[in-house]
């Protein structure tokens, strides 16, 4: 028995912490348990560190959604794959659709209803575009701004990216406007409920906008196709008319020739 000095043979601190967490090999455990009754220092320290662990147990992260809204964060972050942009496009095959539309159809919408400041919409599994208000924006020259920033990862902007950017800006502007309107709210639960509604509404609006744009493109393409058909019609008509004239002229020439021949006889 030695009350002033620990005589454990081995990496005592490591073994002690391994014993404390019960993450220890059988041989080390045996050795340490044989040592403990004889070592007041180790026993005291083991007790103290157990108490520290007890104190650590008091530290729970704030569960915002449980605390305020009463629901688990299960509605917070989900990957969804909206099918709607595919239907009623007027394109016979998917490959005929414009590139941006294909991207929209394949897009992923990850919506966060967890909080106001970190609304995060991301449109493309291949990291094409993302909107975020948090600190994880691709670092620009300035410090992270509180306002939403739209970033494009692709070095050369495709036409559809511009379309989506416009959509995002509209959605974000709408959300921000509504958030501003609800700022002087009467309770956290009510506020969270409103935020949820806003986020959902913004998603619906976003999908509606996409559907509108899809319809627009389809209509434009339809109009263009009709215009092309008219043009072709007209051209065909011209060809037919000119062909008719040619035939008439040829017939007249033949007639004239026949007359001459008969006259010469």
């Amino acid at each position: 028995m030695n009350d002033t000095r620990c005589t454990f043979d081995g990496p005592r601190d490591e073994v002690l912490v391994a014993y404390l967490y019960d993450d220890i090999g059988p041989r080390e455990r045996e050795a340490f348990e044989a040592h403990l009754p004889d070592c007041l220092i180790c026993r005291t320290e083991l007790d103290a560190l157990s108490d520290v662990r007890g104190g650590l147990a008091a530290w729970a992260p704030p569960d915002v959604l449980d605390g305020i809204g009463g629901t688990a964060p299960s509605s917070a972050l989900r990957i969804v794959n909206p099918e709607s942009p595919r239907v009623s496009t007027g394109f016979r095959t998917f490959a005929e659709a414009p590139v941006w539309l294909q991207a929209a159809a394949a897009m992923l919408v990850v919506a966060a209803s967890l909080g106001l400041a970190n609304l995060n919409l991301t449109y493309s599994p291949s990291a094409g575009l993302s909107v975020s208000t948090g600190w994880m924006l691709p670092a620009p020259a300035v410090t992270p701004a509180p306002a939403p920033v739209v970033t494009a990862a692709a070095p050369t902007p495709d036409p559809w990216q511009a379309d989506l950017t416009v959509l995002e800006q509209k959605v974000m502007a709408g959300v921000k406007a509504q958030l501003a309107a609800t700022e002087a709210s009467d309770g956290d639960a009510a506020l969270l409920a409103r935020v949820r509604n806003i986020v959902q509404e913004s998603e619906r609006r976003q999908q509606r906008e996409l559907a509108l744009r899809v319809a627009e493109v389809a209509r434009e393409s339809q109009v263009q196709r009709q215009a092309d058909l008219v043009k072709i019609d007209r051209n065909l008509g011209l060809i037919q008319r000119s062909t008719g004239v040619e035939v008439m002229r040829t017939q007249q020439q033949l007639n004239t020739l026949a007359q001459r021949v008969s006259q010469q006889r």
Partner: protein
Amino acid sequence: MTSTDEELVARSMGGDHDSFNQLILRWERPIYALAYRTIGREEDARDVCQETFLRAYRALPKFRREAKFSSWIYRIALNLCRDWARRERRTPVVQLPEDMDLIEMAAAVGPSESIEDLVARKDLTARVELAMARLPDEQRTAIVLKEYHGLTFQEIADLQGCPLSTVKTRLYQGLSVLRREFARSPGRVA
């Protein structure tokens, strides 16, 4: 019957979004808790949590099927926490509990007490948070992964990229510092 993480990952890799959503459902709380205890800010922890799953989803094709999904997702989250620390150039923040009335407390505080003492006296959680926030990153992360996530020393060593013995030393040193911190706090924690 509930699917294992590995089964869900396999289905996610096959394009089944619902399976990935199940993985999110299963892991978002631990990941959020990890992020919160590592960086100390609710909003940023939520950002980290979101970004972790986004990155995981995008990186699914690169996921090695023999790997453990939880280790993979922890690694992504810890990398993001590290990015956060670099970006913010600061140590974890301690947020005051919302129900804490500082004015009322200031009236009750003695002249020799600091604001930290004040907070510590009022709220046990804040005391633990303060003490944890003062630890070096590696020690804090090792403690968080062991204490709150029940990882093995080996798993922590893999995540922290250090020898097994280093993990144990980090834990021992971190806990020893906490022991001293708690001992000198008013109204001792431990």
